[in-house]
Structure formats: structure tokens, C-alpha cells
């Protein structure tokens, strides 16, 4: 494994490009496929807005998870932290504070759980899988307890604008939450690929003892990766609260697996030492496009591409007229994950 700072600028770019090629090509194929089979609905500005709003939660989780995974760890608590943060923000809004205060508290709650994870994994040296499995349960339980086992609704006059797909100043084009995510993605991508801290994260993921010998503050760096991941899960929770217009303690159940899948599809090595923020985002958008597109497929529109009516009817009778059923979608995502893992294996040989 090579660390980015050991390579020249061009070679570094080139290696990143090669890593991104697979996931990006896969994303293009998916977009192309749905553009062909769902022409009227997939390739529209409205759907671009929708798809971007649908992806933000997993994208934010995947950015944080990339840091943890590149540093050789894993964080299973993301889904629960999203729920906890959304419940916390909802409670703060209901208590009469402003949306901004609520958002800050939601993020702070995420950061707090991230710090606990960091303490358990980096300082107490527990295996990351076990430690975050524990906090996953704790955060979910606390969320249900705080919310008294039901959904917390803010007062009637409270309006959620962060995730409005047709934002109020029209020139924004996308939901404000999407712009927040884009800014975060650029900042965190820069940190991972361009700063000393990013190089440290990579180095402890690829060879921890070598990194320690080189003077990398391993414990502090690992701590920070979990804290950042928790913080981003907190942001995701705030956005989820705005999207559902309520704090739901059962939301994002199993989201951690979707996030890990996005990171793996994006070309990161689960063994640590490699991964890019860009790749993980591509992975997240790929999965979101798959589920969005599967809902939009209209077999009868295939006629325009020269497919016979009988063929379209056969496809309809196989998959039903309601596009591609949910179980096919689940199988597809599973297949994509396996292919991504196989590609990763080939690179390492």
C-alpha cells in the first residue's frame, strides 16, 4: 500500500483516477440504463432534485465512514446516531428554540457519540466492530427513550425548508441541505487527500506500527476519525428530521450497512489504507439511483428504442407493470457490492 504523500502529484492523480474509474463507469451505466428505460421521468430536473435530496443522508454518512474505513476501522453506529440526532433536534424545536439551535444540538449529539466511539476504539483499544455495535444499541435505545417510543413532531407552524426540493429562493435550484452536503463533501475531500491529517489517517490504516514509528499521533488521529464520522452522522440526522418533518427514533434502521456498502462500492479497502471521499459519494449516488430508477422504469416506453410490444409485455409480465419490484432492487445492490469487492481483490493481487 502506498500513501499519497509518497507519490508525485501526477502519479497520485493517476492512481486516484484509476480507482474512481470503476465506480464512475458503473454509475454512468446505471444512469444510462434508466435514461433508456424511464426516459420521461428519470432524466428530468425534478427527478435530479428528488434524487439529490434522497441521497444526502447516505452521502454524509459515507463521507464520515470513509475517514473511519481509511483509518482501518468501522462505525456501525451511524444509523442509530442519525435517529438520535433527529430526535434531539425535534425535541429542541418542540421546546421552543430556533431551528438553528436545534440543528447545532443535533450535530453536537452526533459529535458526542463519535467521541465516545473514538474513546472506546482509540484509547480503550476495543475492536471497532464491537465498540460501535455497542454504541449502535445505546444510541438507538436513548433515541427511543427520549422520544418516548413515538415520533416527535415539532409545532404546527414550524416549516422545514432545509430539505425542500423546490427551495424558496428559486436560484438555489437544489434543496439547501444538498448544498450543505456539497460544501461538506468538498471540504472533507480536501482534508483527506490534501492535508497532513489526511495522510496520517491513510498511514495508520495501511500500517499502524510503521505510522507510529514515523511519529504519527495514532490515538489522536483515530479519535478524530470517529468524532468526524459522528459529527457527519449528526448533520445527516438533522437533515433527516427536516425531511420527515419529525424526529423518528426508528428511522435510518440499517442505514449503517447502506453507508458501508457505498464506501466499498466507491473503491475503499475495508482493510484500511485506501479510499476517497469522491468514490464513496459515487457509491452512495449509485445506490440511490438504483432505487430511484427501479421505481421509475416503464417497460412500455421501450418501444421507442425498437423493442417490440411483445417483448415489452413479456418484461411487464416478468417484473410487473410497476417498474422493477423491490426485491430485484435488493438483489441488484447486493450484486454491485460483490462486484466492487471482487474488483478490490483484483487490485490487491
Amino acid at each position, binding site marked *: 500500500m502506498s500513501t499519497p504523500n509518497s507519490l508525485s502529484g501526477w502519479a497520485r492523480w493517476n492512481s486516484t483516477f484509476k480507482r474512481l474509474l470503476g465506480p464512475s463507469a458503473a454509475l454512468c451505466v446505471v444512469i444510462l440504463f434508466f*435514461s433508456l428505460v424511464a426516459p420521461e421521468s428519470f432524466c428530468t430536473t425534478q427527478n435530479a432534485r428528488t434524487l439529490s435530496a434522497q441521497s444526502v443522508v447516505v452521502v454524509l454518512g459515507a463521507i464520515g465512514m470513509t475517514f473511519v474505513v481509511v483509518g482501518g476501522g468501522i462505525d456501525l453506529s451511524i444509523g442509530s446516531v442519525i435517529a438520535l440526532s433527529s430526535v434531539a433536534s425535534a425535541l429542541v424545536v418542540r421546546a421552543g428554540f430556533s431551528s438553528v439551535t436545534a440543528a447545532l444540538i443535533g450535530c453536537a449529539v452526533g459529535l458526542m457519540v463519535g467521541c465516545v466511539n473514538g474513546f472506546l476504539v482509540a484509547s480503550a483499544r476495543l475492536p471497532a466492530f464491537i465498540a460501535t455495535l455497542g454504541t449502535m444499541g445505546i444510541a438507538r435505545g436513548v433515541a427511543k427513550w427520549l422520544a418516548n417510543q413515538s415520533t416527535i*413532531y415539532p409545532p404546527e407552524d414550524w416549516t422545514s425548508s432545509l430539505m425542500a426540493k423546490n427551495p424558496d429562493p428559486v436560484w438555489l435550484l437544489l434543496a439547501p441541505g444538498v448544498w450543505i452536503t456539497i460544501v461538506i463533501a468538498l471540504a472533507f475531500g480536501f482534508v483527506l487527500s490534501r492535508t497532513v491529517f489526511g495522510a496520517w489517517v491513510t498511514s495508520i490504516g495501511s500500517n499502524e506500527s510503521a505510522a507510529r514509528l514515523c511519529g504519527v499521533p495514532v490515538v489522536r488521529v483515530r479519535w478524530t476519525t470517529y468524532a468526524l464520522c459522528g459529527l457527519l452522522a449528526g448533520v445527516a440526522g438533522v437533515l433527516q428530521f427536516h425531511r*420527515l418533518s419529525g424526529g423518528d427514533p426508528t428511522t435510518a434502521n440499517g442505514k449503517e450497512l447502506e453507508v458501508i456498502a457505498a464506501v466499498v462500492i466507491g473503491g475503499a479497502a475495508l482493510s484500511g489504507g485506501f479510499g476517497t471521499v469522491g468514490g464513496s459519494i459515487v457509491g452512495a449516488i449509485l445506490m440511490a439511483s438504483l432505487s*430511484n430508477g427501479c421505481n*421509475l422504469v416503464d417497460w412500455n416506453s421501450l418501444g421507442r428504442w425498437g423493442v417490440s410490444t411483445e417483448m415489452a409485455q413479456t418484461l411487464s409480465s416478468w417484473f410487473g*407493470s410497476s417498474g422493477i419490484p423491490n426485491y430485484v432492487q435488493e438483489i441488484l445492490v447486493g450484486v454491485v457490492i460483490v462486484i466492487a469487492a471482487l474488483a478490490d481483490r483484483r487490485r490487491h493481487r
Partner: protein
Amino acid sequence: MQSLTTHSNFRRSILVLASLVFIASLGAFSAQEKTRPMIAVIPKGTTHEFWKTVHAGALKGASESGVDILWKGPAREDDRDDQIKVVESSVSRKVQGIVIAPLDEQALVPSLKEAATAKIPVVVFDSGIKWDGRSSFVATDNRRGGMLAAEELGRILAGKGKVVMMRYVEGSASTTLREDGFLSTMKEKFPTIQIVSSDQYGGATVDSAYRVAENLLNRFADLDGLYAPNESTTYACMKALTDLKRGDKVHLVGFDASEKLVAGLRAGSIDALVVQNPFRMGELAVTTMAKVIRGESVPKDVDTGCTLVTRTNIDEPAIRTVLEPPIAQWLKK
């Protein structure tokens, strides 16, 4: 050198893909004609028997009123966020109408408002929503169902005795109405019947409801009647009555039908069941939406009806179609 080649290969493939995407998006704007209106029907889930029955009814309604339906549930059963995604993609698809059983009375409001902004009418069925932009609300009149149960239990007990009403869970709107309807009818029509307990919640699982039923039966040794407001509590009461051998003394009136409950009704463990009509609910939801699309006026609330099933009427053809709706005829797969 090799790395340079890879790089230009990469750029070339990106160019090819980009142009293909461009061509595809050109195709997106060519007009397409459709003869029958397309309606999205969005249930709370897809694997439960209840929703399969609604699906069959929706297909019948579609064939009656000359529309096509898109049956699409949330990818993860009972996940609010996933149901919002289905609404959003229905708007993207530009369906002519959305028929939805909302998982949450508030979480779905913003996305349905967006549908309304896009001039797509919305019919809500099964569960209510805190939004008055809907064209119609098609659901079981749960209060009436509770009243039916009270009338039957009062008739069986001939207006006297001690009755326990078990509740389901706190905050469940449909079952609370069934409980309120039962209590008010009992008070009005059978003032001599003594309701000895009406504040015990069975909880969401059969397991918890079973424990509550056992405790209630032990507490009231001279009980005459028992009412349970949904499938799981009815099953728990039936099981507790059978296990404690109190079945021949205590009369049980329950709500909803399942294979086990119908078998219990035939065996005599249950005296009567109030049964909803999910098949008719699916049918009425779709036909109501078809009327909205044609510009006809529709009532704000449509009752899909409750039926009282007893041992004597269980084999009548009308009751049979409620208990065993023609699912196979409409769902070919």
C-alpha cells in the same frame, strides 16, 4: 508511459459515456401518448396479507374504471423515508393520481403537498393524514366497527353481566376509535352491563397482550364478556380463554380476521368478529381516484364498511367474499 495510456483511455471512455447519456436524455423529451390514466397506489408495505388483499381490490377497481395502476410500496416495510421516496418517484413519473395509505400522519405531508403543486390529485386510504389537500379519505369507519361489536356483545349477554374491554396500544388512532365506539354504545344501549375494566393496554405483540389477558381473567373470576380491538389482542384473548378453560363462560367479541381467528370462531372460542374489508378498500380507493381524474365530485370521506361475522352467518356467500376475497383472480402471480 503506461499510466498515460490508461489516463487517455479513461478520458475517452468518459466522453463516450457522456455522449450516450446526452443522446438518451434527448429521447427523454420526445412526447409519448397514453390512453389510460396511470394511478400510483402506495401501500404501507407489500408482504402482509392485508396489503395483498388491498392490491387485488385495487386491480378490480382499476379494471372497472378504465385506469392503470402502479402498485409500489416502500422498499423497507413500514419505513417512512422509503414511502416518501415512492411518492417522490410517482411525482417524477407524472402519474395522474396518487392513492396512498400513509405510514405517518405528518411525515408524508410535505411530499404529498409537492404532488398537489404538480397538479396530481391525492386520495388517502386506510389511515388518516393531517392535511386537507386530499381529494378524499377512503377508510373503515372504525368507530362504527366498535359500535357493531358492542351491540353484538350486549345481545349475547342479554343486557347484563360484567365485561372487560382490552385496549391495543397508546396513540393508535384506528383502534382508539374502535374502543371509543364500543364504550359509548355499551353505555347508551346496555346501561345494565358493568364494564369492569377498560384501561388495560395489550401492547403491540401477541406475547404482551397474552400476559395482559391472563392477568385480567385471573383478576375477574366472574367475567361474562370480553372485547378486543384488533387481530393480535383478539388472538391473545382467545388463547388465554382456551388455556385457562374459561371459554364456555366468557363470551369473546374480537376485531379483524385471520385464519386462526376464523378457525376459533368456527370452534366456538370466539362468538363474533368485526371484520374490515381491505378488498373493498382497495377497490373504492381506486374508483374514487378515477372519478377525481374524470372531474366528478367525490365525498370527502368514503366508508369501506365493517361486517359482523358470527357462527351462524359465516357460510353466507356475502360473508365468504369478505373473509376470502377473490385475490387469486386479480393477482395472477
